[in-house]
């Protein structure tokens, strides 16, 4: 069982971790969720058909992530911040600034996390899997590009 479990772990851990990161956007919590999922697999390994993997593991991660959200909602009043306020919801926004040509997905994500969600550089690194240095590089490039775009110049 040990060998089989380790083989399954090595095969699926990347996908499970990536999925966990999508669920929580925090590297440390994603690692905990990954650990939880494989612990559940370890305990049920003999009764699980391996063809159900990694879907079974992703379901565990999703459920744990939901549990964590529920706790956070209770703890921090997140429910209020999650519920869009009808009077300020825009039916369809132009996304103008972030639609600037030259910005790639990673730049838009970094800009949004930094200047809309106001995350720190280390939090953005944790959310995206980048290093803090990479985040700094992407933000520098993005700000320069935005400045140039606003001034009608090339960066």
């Amino acid at each position: 069982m040990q060998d089989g479990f380790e083989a399954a772990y090595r095969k699926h851990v990347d996908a499970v971790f990536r999925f966990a990161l999508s669920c929580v956007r925090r590297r440390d919590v994603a690692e905990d969720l990954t650990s939880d999922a494989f612990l559940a697999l370890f305990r049920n390994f003999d009764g699980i058909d391996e063809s159900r993997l990694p879907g079974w593991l992703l379901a565990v991660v999703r459920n744990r992530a939901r549990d964590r959200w529920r706790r956070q909602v209770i703890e921090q009043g997140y429910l209020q911040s999650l519920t869009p306020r009808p009077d300020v919801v825009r039916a369809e926004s132009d996304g103008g600034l972030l639609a600037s040509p030259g910005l790639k997905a990673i730049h838009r994500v970094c800009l949004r996390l930094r200047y809309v969600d106001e995350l720190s550089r280390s939090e953005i690194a944790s959310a995206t899997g980048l290093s803090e240095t990479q985040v700094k590089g992407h933000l520098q490039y993005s700000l320069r590009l935005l400045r140039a775009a606003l001034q009608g110049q090339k960066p």
Partner: protein
Amino acid sequence: MSVRPHNLESWERKEYGQVAPALDELRRQREACPPAFAVSAAAVFALPDDEQSAVEAHVASCSMCRDLQADFERLEPVGIPARTEDRILEEVRKRAATKTRPAVFGWRLLVPASVAVVVLVVVGIAGNRHGRLPAPGAPSLPPVVVAAPAPPAAPAPRPQLDKPAVKLSMLALTWRGASDGRSFATDVAPALDAFRADRFDEAERALRVLAPHYPTSVEIPFYQGVSLLFLDRPADAIGPLRRASRLADELFAADAGWYLGVALQRAGHATEARTRFAALCRGAGAYARRACEEAR
């Protein structure tokens, strides 16, 4: 809601300043948007039902949040570093082994023997008149491995408040954070003296003053939180005990979890308290039995 200048790093001030009006406008437009991590979670249906519905409804009407979901999807796949992969596998095996060991062995099995010998040191602070601690391993202070408090035989109607033993990690004993060479142990000694003598008000004040100087110490928020519990201020104890839980190593993990549960329960946060107790109940730690009773 804005990235205030003091939150900006020095390298980004100049660049940010030139595009500040546009970014401020973007932020103003996005005040109604859920946090980015909720938008990401919703894309993989990882939110509880109510929140999932609320965020989905928002995303349906907000092109920027739809773009964000798409952008997250487009990011380069994040691999898990080999070291982390091995560490998680090891952790899974340890956790699995812990659960299947007979409960009679209790908490000791959670701590590797090598760690126990080095780290589990009871510090005789009160017995030291000058408040200075001998160097780790000095003959006058032999390390003493201590058992965590024994679980009580009978369940209490609300978690009974027992005073935890004063202990410091070896890391804390040897930690020299201040430039004048004062050690953490020397600085914290008067506060822990007061704690041991049941002068909780004095202990709490002293620990509160020390907290900013030792932000990664688990001992300071832990004993501050427990002092607040003894002062019958459970709501105030929650913050320090949450911090202690986040910082806790194996030596403090169960203690921090238990006292946080007690604080939450006494402050009226019964749902979260039960969650905390349930987590302790699943382990084989010193508080497992009491936690199981409280989690019911």
